[in-house]
């Protein structure tokens, strides 16, 4: 696999100066997510690869912190750290007016809340934000509910691998002088084959969105401003 974004287990051990024993122990303690392990056949036999930036960063974190915390607690500590970073981002995103109160309301997040946002909530907020110009209120609610439920069922791990996008669609039904429009939210691959009567309102690249959130989190210094949610024509004819 000569993809720069991935690194083999051997290289990880060598670069970070750790042992197989440590790596397997950390995996057992939930410090390295199962989803990061990708098995590939190479000319020397089966090998395990990891997303390079993620694994190196995580191991640095573990090495740095394992002196201060028992290994069993470290998983909690690391997730808390990630959450703390998220909160920083949350405040910054708010200042940048990346979302407004209506978005928070749609995502049922208390705007005065002190608890940090989870990565799932952040993704919901980001997606709803991006769609808020093109979509109607009830569609935003549908988007939020769809994401919220599916994210609880392990969607997060699949986003990157399956390059998932969230599509917002509308279809008009008419007959007998009455016409109605229904909205659909679909999470699937980029290219959907739809019947010709379905209108695409907008779609969001979930992987791209996640990356953007993480990039923003990694970039703790002020100034790494995320770009504004892109403007789109509103297709709101009735």
């Amino acid at each position, binding site marked *: 696999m000569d993809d720069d974004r991935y690194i083999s287990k051997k290289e990880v051990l060598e670069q970070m100066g750790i042992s*197989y024993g440590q790596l397997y122990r950390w995996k*057992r303690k939930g410090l390295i997510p199962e989803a990061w392990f990708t098995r590939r056949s190479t000319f020397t036999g*089966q090998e395990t690869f990891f997303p390079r930036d993620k694994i190196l960063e995580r191991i640095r974190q573990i090495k740095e912190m394992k002196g201060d915390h028992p290994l069993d607690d470290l998983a909690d500590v690391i997730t808390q750290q990630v959450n703390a970073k998220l909160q920083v981002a949350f405040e910054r995103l708010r200042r940048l007016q990346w979302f407004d109160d209506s978005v928070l309301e749609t995502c049922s997040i208390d705007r005065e809340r002190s608890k940090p946002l989870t990565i799932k909530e952040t993704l919901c907020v980001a997606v709803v934000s991006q769609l808020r110009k093109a979509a109607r209120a009830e569609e935003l609610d549908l988007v939020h509910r769809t994401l919220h439920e599916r994210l609880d069922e392990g969607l997060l791990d699949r986003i990157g691998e399956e390059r998932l996008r969230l599509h917002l669609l509308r279809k008009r039904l008419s007959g007998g002088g009455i016409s109605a429009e229904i909205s659909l939210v679909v999470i699937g691959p980029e290219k959907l084959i739809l019947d010709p009567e379905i209108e695409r309102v907008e779609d969001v690249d979930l992987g791209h969105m996640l990356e953007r959130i993480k990039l923003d989190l990694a970039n703790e210094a002020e100034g790494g401003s995320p770009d504004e949610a892109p403007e789109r024509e509103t297709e709101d004819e009735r």
Partner: protein
Amino acid sequence: MNDDKRSASLAGAGKLSGGDYTRVSISGAGKVTGDIKAEALRISGAGKVEGRAEAIQITVSGSGAFGGEVVADEMRVSGATRIDGMARVKELKCSGSYRVRESIVSEYVKVSGVLRAGGDVEADLLKTSGGFEIEGLLSADKIEIRPGGRCYAKEIGGAKIDVRRGGYRERGILLDGLVRMFSGKGTAELRSTVIEGDEIHLEDTIADVVRGTRVEIGPGCRIKTVEYSEELQIHPNAEVGKQQKV
């Protein structure tokens, strides 16, 4: 329902509803409907828990079936146990047969019978002298395998991995018979695709790839590729296809 904890004992054929108990003992053909929480759960007949079981100590000496997850500090099995979920057992000692549909998460595992897991097996220390079949990853800080029957794990990883002849040869005839019965013809060997560790000693092992810091390939091994970073020793009665210092 009151919250008072009760003890229950089923001696004939009976049913027990789930709930919170101190001691539960099933010595006939008993069934627990629903989830159960107890300090001690003892099955010496044919017992079945239809839901999740959580106890400090679980003992199975007859046949025990669990419909859901099993959580315990200590579990001893000398009969046959089947778990249709995950087993989270800190200390697991099995001299009978132990089948888990999903993974086993443990600290100390000792198997002298037969163990099967549909998922991974994780522990700090694992010792086996019987047979096993693990569909996922077998991972522990220290792994000691004395094949006493057919042993298979899709992948094996840990700090110290030690596989040596022994197993059933050192045990009584009765257990030997049991192990052979469960594990087939009595070929005592270990098979795996990838074995990775810091210190590895292997005997009677068939694997595609062995990767380690210090590696000893002992008698009876057939390994396609060995990658090592510090030291490699190969016994004359071992076959190694390719070796590479990395």
